[in-house]
């Protein structure tokens, strides 16, 4: 009879502190991180130390340019000629690799200008 009484409290292990900690972790990850779609191609964004941390506007289309010069527009690979045909009346967000040479970048910017894109925002990764 005595040992039967001892076994009972040991069986109901207290999981409430565990849930507390897990909830805290959950809230931490939900608040500090941002959910963003993955990059269209393998990219390493150029870094900046200053500048506004203005997170890029939502709803602006994304043009990705990787270090090999491949252009991705809305999950589709574009050729050089197709760049002239794309329409982005509100401007676009350029996510380009930091190692893209000017010989690839400048013609692309000129083409976007000719295509009538009013505004090109380069996305950078901010470091301290």
């Amino acid at each position, binding site marked *: 009879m005595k040992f039967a009484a001892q076994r009972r409290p040991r069986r109901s292990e207290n999981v409430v502190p565990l849930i507390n900690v897990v909830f805290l972790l*959950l809230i931490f990850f939900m608040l500090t*991180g941002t959910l963003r779609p993955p990059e269209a191609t393998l990219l390493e964004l*150029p870094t900046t130390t200053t500048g506004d941390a203005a997170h890029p506007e939502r709803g602006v289309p994304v043009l990705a340019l990787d270090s090999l010069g491949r252009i991705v527009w809305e999950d589709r690979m574009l050729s050089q000629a197709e760049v002239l045909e794309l329409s982005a009346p509100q401007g676009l967000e350029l996510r380009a*690799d930091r190692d893209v040479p000017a010989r690839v970048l400048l013609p692309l*910017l000129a083409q976007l200008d000719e295509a009538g894109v009013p505004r090109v925002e*380069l*996305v950078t*990764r901010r470091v301290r």
Partner: protein
Amino acid sequence: MRFDPSARKRRKVSLTPLIDVVFLLLVFFMLASRFDIEGALPLVVQAGSPQAATPGDFLRVVIDDEGETRIDERIVSTAELVTAAARAGRDGQSVVVAAAPDATLQAIVDTLEAVERSGVSDAVLERQGAP
């Protein structure tokens, strides 16, 4: 003595499914969250033909193939570039950044950032780039 035996049973709600769901949510947010901060830098390319502009009404900053910044063929440090751009801004000159073919985007971004830090907000990229 009124004693309801069902009151005791109702208190024992199983927490296991709740923990399962919370763990799943936790793993999802841990894997899907990204913590890097992104910034935006406007890239403006020079309009029209550069021949129209006479030298002297703009400051031309050249980024060479090695990523060095040059003003009038002379390599300048970031601090010198900021001072020169600030002086150009005071004199009402615009700043034009010309990048050599092999200059990387990171070098261009560094230069544009230095120009922006000097208070000149309308630096443009030269359409053709430096030879």
